[in-house]
């Protein structure tokens, strides 16, 4: 494995795409666009400070940099890196999330993208996602070695300081990772954890031993909630730490007005100088879609996120701004309740898939900006573009239905979030198209909390079909492991979900998630993608939609990582 380890040192060959899960309640509340994305690749950015003048993805199928021509988006459009990075300036960012309640990375937050973004700016991690890729490169850890077939990781830290000037030591890392691993503290994300023990070998070396081989471990230690905190300060301040944090990241918490905005300022002690280029940034909480967009067009804000699909055409070409569409690796997915007949029948699920007019949905709901899903896992590592998506074929649908226990159709209901325009439109379309194979679809509109409550109840998941809009079926990590385990192997988690129970799929996931052997993983994930699309689908995959923001033309290098965090240390402002 040695050469493999060496190969990993300094970062691997990036995968084409990366995918992370984002929890964002507010999106659904306000019918916002989907989250997560693929970024223009600047793979070597973190190691070499220099900025390539012409990023590789900037001229994608979007046709012409910065202008979307209404074609399906498979590569980023509108990213801009003109001029050379320069210091100074402040960015105001109108978005849909309320200011984070507290800023301790290991304590529970509302789980909003908003919160995670704050944590991401305030704390650095062992590894970091390489922009435009699905894999993590060095972060606070300059390099690492993997031993014992993936059971033991040794991280070599670079010299870096906390925002208060203290040096970041191995003990801080140990402390932080142990907090992350402790469900009593990190009740929210501990489920990602496979860590058994953490040792500080010396001031700059940390060794982590896992309970089992976790293929996605390097991604996990890049997750926002593994941010490195100063042990001394945290122990001194306790719960108060989250109120006035001391961080290891590019920015420092400056001020917050509940329900209105939160501000960060540049961290002069950030290890990766001269970054950050900007003096700081402010997040404005603007729930109303139009108000948010207007803040950008009227110059109050330098960026607005998200842009609802319904508004794509309207803001496609507004003077002084540019629309950034960054392909969306999160998957829109209709989850049937497999405990409720007839959804426990393979044929019924297949029928539903063939009766779903994906092209129409993409055209009408996502304004053609999305990419029709050819996978029920998502556009993750090992994603195979060659596999075709399920065509709209009513005869096939009827045929499958005929083989089921409900040959002439049935009555069922689709649980959606009422405020989410996309969901409502999608539901309305399905209502008419599924009607043609005798399925009478009722639409069950609730607010997001009720929806989550009904969906996640293990004892009696109270729904027939459930569409989560942009949320849920997105991965926190670039590897497919998380979604795989979640969807096809849910015994591991003690919460509800699909209850999909297919021995073949389970075996594949079980094997793939516990090895670091790339060939095995590639084979298994590919097979799972095929099998769970056309043979025994757990539900109805709809599309991968782009993540859309409206950005002031002066703002450069504004881009989103696949985990839906914006590394604003890379942003600068052209005068």
């Amino acid at each position, binding site marked *: 494995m040695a050469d493999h380890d060496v190969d990993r040192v300094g970062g691997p060959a990036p995968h084409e795409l990366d995918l992370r899960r984002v929890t964002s309640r507010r999106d659904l509340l306000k019918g916002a666009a989907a989250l997560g994305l693929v970024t223009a690749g600047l793979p070597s950015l973190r190691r070499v400070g220099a900025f390539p003048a012409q990023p590789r993805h900037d001229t994608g199928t979007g046709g012409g940099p910065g202008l979307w021509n209404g074609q399906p988006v498979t590569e980023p459009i509108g990213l801009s890196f003109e001029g050379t990075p320069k210091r100074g300036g402040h960015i105001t960012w109108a978005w849909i999330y309320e200011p984070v*309640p507290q800023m301790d990375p290991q304590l529970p937050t509302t789980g909003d993208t908003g919160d995670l973004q704050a944590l991401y700016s305030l704390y650095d991690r062992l590894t970091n996602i390489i922009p435009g890729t699905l894999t993590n490169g060095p972060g606070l850890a300059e390099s690492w070695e993997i031993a014992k077939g993936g059971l033991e990781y040794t991280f070599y830290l670079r010299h870096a300081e906390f925002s208060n000037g203290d040096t970041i030591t191995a003990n801080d890392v140990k402390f932080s990772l142990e907090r992350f691993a402790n469900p009593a503290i990190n009740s*929210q994300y501990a489920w990602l954890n496979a860590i058994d023990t953490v040792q500080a070998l010396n001031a700059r070396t940390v060794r982590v031993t896992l309970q089992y081989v976790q293929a996605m471990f390097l991604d996990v230690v890049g997750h926002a909630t593994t941010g490195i905190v100063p042990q001394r300060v945290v122990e001194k301040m306790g719960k108060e730490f989250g109120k006035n944090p001391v961080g290891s990241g590019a920015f420092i918490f400056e001020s917050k007005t509940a329900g209105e905005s939160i501000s960060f300022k540049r961290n002069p002690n950030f290890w990766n100088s001269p970054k950050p280029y900007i003096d700081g940034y402010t997040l404005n*909480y603007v729930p109303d879609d139009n108000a948010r967009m207007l803040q950008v067009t009227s110059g109050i804000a330098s960026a607005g996120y998200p842009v609802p699909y319904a508004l794509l055409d309207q803001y496609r070409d507004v003077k002084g701004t540019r629309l950034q569409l960054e392909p969306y690796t999160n998957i829109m997915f209709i989850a049937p309740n497999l405990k409720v007949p007839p959804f426990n029948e393979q044929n019924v699920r297949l029928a539903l898939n063939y009766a779903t007019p994906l092209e129409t949905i993409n055209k009408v709901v996502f304004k053609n900006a999305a990419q029709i899903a050819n996978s029920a896992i998502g556009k993750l590592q090992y994603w195979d573009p060659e596999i075709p998506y399920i065509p709209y074929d009513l005869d096939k649908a009827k045929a499958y239905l005929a083989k089921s226990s409900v040959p002439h159709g049935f009555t069922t209901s689709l649980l959606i979030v009422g405020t989410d325009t996309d969901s409502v439109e999608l539901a309305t379309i399905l209502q008419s198209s599924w009607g043609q194979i005798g399925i009478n679809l009722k639409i069950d509109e609730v607010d997001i909390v009720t929806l989550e409550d009904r969906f996640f109840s293990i004892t009696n998941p109270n729904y027939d079909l459930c569409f989560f809009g942009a949320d849920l079926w997105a991965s926190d990590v670039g590897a497919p492991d998380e979604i795989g385990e979640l969807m096809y192997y849910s015994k591991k988690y*003690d*919460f509800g979900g699909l209850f999909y129970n297919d021995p073949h799929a389970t075996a594949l996931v079980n094997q793939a998630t516990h090895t670091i052997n790339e060939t095995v993983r590639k084979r298994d994930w590919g097979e799972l993608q095929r099998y769970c699309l056309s043979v025994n689908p757990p539900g109805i995959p709809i599309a991968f939609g782009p993540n859309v923001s409206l950005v002031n033309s002066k703002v450069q290098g504004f881009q989103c990582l696949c985990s839906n965090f914006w590394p604003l240390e890379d942003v600068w402002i052209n005068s």
Partner: protein
Amino acid sequence: MGVYLIRRIGQSVLALIGITLVAFLLIQLVPGNPARVILGPRASVSAVAALRRAMGLDRSLLAQYWSFLTNAFRLNFGYSAVQQSPVASLLWPRLGSTLLLTAYATFVSVLLAVPLALASALKRNRPADHAVRLMTMVTFAMPSFWLGLVLILLLAVKFTVFPTSGYGVGVFGHLDSLTLPALALGLGIAPLILRTLRGSIVDTLGSEFVEAARARGLGELRVLGRYVLRNSLVASVTVVAINVGYILSIVVVIENVFALPGLGSLLVTSVQDRDFPVVQGVALLLGAIVVIINLVTDLGYSLLDPRIRLSGRN
């Protein structure tokens, strides 16, 4: 007067308790588990259950309400687990913006209503009167969020007079960015005031003391000012107070449209987040505002009308 005041305050406190009770029970009935909200979809059931216990949500409703009430009595509105901060610290900052907005809007609507009311009362049953009345009907029938958006479209997008949304910085920043919301809200309140005022002006105009004043040869302006308006205001001052609920209902929507950090939007989000302590806190605070406004108007009323001030009866 003293007795009267005490009785009023007593009633108000009862009303307050009523409000919070209604708020409490309702929010409790709403499906959805705050612990789940806090921990997010992927949190384990055991973690959720633990947090639920930690939040004291496993106790009986009565116990919960009682502890809320007793704490509230000590001005401790509890702790919002969702927002991870004391409810009070969430309430106060937003109270300002809501009060400012409401005050501003009331000012705007009075500015609109008083002259129009006078005009239509003086020109009773004439075209002018009908026009004004029709106008009030129209504004009364407008969905407030719709009106808000139209205003944004006109005054912020077409002619960039005011900011489209947000709360601005500093007092003038606030006022500047509150102008549109205040206008939208004001147009919602105006019919309220206008209708009442017109009515009482009509009455007052017919009253003998106005005729007497005229017979005494007092100038028309003087008669209108010191006799007609003065007495009509007495009648219509209360209407605003009485209808605070109506007004706040609009405030909720308006704050949402204009992205204002006010109690209304806080209430909406905390209902959506099942953030019980905050909902109760807001309910209590709004209730208190209502009660205070009512008391103040009663006092103002009695200042305006000696009959009440001296006999101490409403």
